[in-house]
């Protein structure tokens, strides 16, 4: 059964230096509050995995939490580059960042395989792409029935999966609604999981086939209203598009970034 913890306790207890961690949320329900707590607690040497490292990973990388990033699209959607990510890759600031890159399809299949308990995902992919030349985790196998050459990637099985969701009930069952992305897969693929939610309710109000993750498949639940902002939580609040644009200016410069981090993460306590 999931344990109800404060954000501070959940991150402190379940994320250690050196862990492989996935903070997921495919453009929706991005666990910003959890990411900020990771920064506040000064976690180091994390291998961060995420299909679309956007602002939350730009912040964590800029704060020096990561030693490696596994991803498939790293940008500020609709705005431009992630300047902290680029500064880390290109100039090793604040530390060297190793990168390993995939396509979305490969990562989606790798999460699916992780949730399915398999060591690998098989897909029809990477044909003609140079990505297999720079990512030694991409292999090719032959179908024993048709002889077709198919791509294979290792399943993602992180130490910790972190997601945000709309709500949990008092037993710790969680409802995810809208763009569900790979939220369920991340929780199931991870050894330990932290789910932050907008609110804890008596009744999830879920439809019969809703995306509900049972309490016994989750490690820790944290009530963190607004925990996905500046991304959004369907039914709760909209995406703060203005902040996404503003981030481009903040993150472009090491000093403005550091100042922003101090004012908005370090000096802000736990929700």
């Amino acid at each position, binding site marked *: 059964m999931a344990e109800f913890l404060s954000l501070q306790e959940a991150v402190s207890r379940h994320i250690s230096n050196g862990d492989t961690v996935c903070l997921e949320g495919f453009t929706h329900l991005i666990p910003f509050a959890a990411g900020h707590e990771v920064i506040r607690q000064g976690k180091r040497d994390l291998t961060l995995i995420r299909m*679309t490292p956007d602002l939350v990973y730009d912040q964590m990388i800029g704060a020096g939490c990561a030693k490696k990033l596994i991803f498939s699209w790293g940008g500020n*959607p609709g705005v431009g580059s992630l300047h902290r990510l680029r500064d880390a890759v290109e100039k090793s600031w604040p530390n060297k960042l190793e990168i390993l890159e995939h396509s979305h399809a490969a990562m*989606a299949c790798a999460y699916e395989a992780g949730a399915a308990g398999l060591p690998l995902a098989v897909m029809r992919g990477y044909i*003609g792409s140079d990505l297999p030349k720079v990512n030694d985790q991409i292999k090719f196998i032959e179908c024993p029935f048709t002889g077709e050459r198919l791509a294979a990637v290792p399943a993602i099985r992180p130490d910790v999966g972190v997601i945000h969701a709309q709500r949990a009930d008092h037993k710790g069952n969680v409802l995810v609604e809208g763009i569900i992305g790979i939220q369920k897969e991340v929780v199931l693929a991870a050894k330990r999981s932290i789910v932050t939610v907008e609110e804890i309710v008596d009744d999830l109000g879920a439809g019969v086939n809703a995306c509900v993750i049972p309490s016994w498949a989750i490690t820790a639940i944290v009530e963190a209203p607004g925990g996905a902002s500046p991304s959004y939580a369907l039914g709760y609040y909209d995406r703060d598009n203005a902040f996404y644009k503003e981030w481009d200016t903040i993150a472009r410069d090491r000093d403005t970034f550091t100042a922003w981090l101090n004012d908005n993460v370090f000096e802000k306590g736990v929700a």
Partner: protein
Amino acid sequence: MSLEFTSSEMMSVTAARALNNSMTCFVGIGVPSEASNLARLTHAPDVTLIYESGTLQTKPDVLPLSIGDGELCESALTTVSVPEMFRYWLQGGHISVGFLGTAQIDRYANLNTTLIGDYREPKVRLPGGGGAPEIATNAQEVFVTVKHSKRTFVKDVDFVTTVGFGRDGKARDNVPNIGQGPTVVITDLCILKPDPETKELVVTSLHPSVTRKDVIDATGWNVRFADDVKTTPEPTARELKVLRDLKARTHAHHAGQQ
């Protein structure tokens, strides 16, 4: 009489016209998204638009800033998980057109969205592949839309993120279960299509008031022109109005969200 329009508008309208009602289109963000929704709001109201965030058959009222904006989900027929999107809907063969943008494109329509320069010592690091590598091979065909410049249209891309026809134009030959690849590239200057034999991109239509020299100057290889180069039809007043309304609505919406 002639309407006033920008080259960007010309590009969006021309890209929109490539879609029709019977297509199921996997939409990339940026110009592809603008063009796809313009098509939906003009001549192709029944075109099916799909975004990689899992939103099936979506009809946003404003253009999304990211591929997973709330509008996409709320106006969709249904929203599925991202693994399902890539496995069942894309790899499963249900996408007729993948509509992509790019940072670099070469004469064989290979796309580079990974980096400029060397992989280990990049001059410019770009966002990466995202959905494109598999959209380009699993969709039945691919449309590309991108602004024309020497920086963008290079002889050989620095990195093949997403295959067009490979370094030699033969990458799709004898590969089972692969789509036909890029069938049209729409820029702000012209339309290019792959030569049926060599797969090299050839200019087939020039936009109004664009010269061959304009295209040659903006292309990083010795670009060929079709025997019968057409002139792309101008945008209609209705197309321009719908496009401008859509962009104004989008701007107001995104600016208003704090």
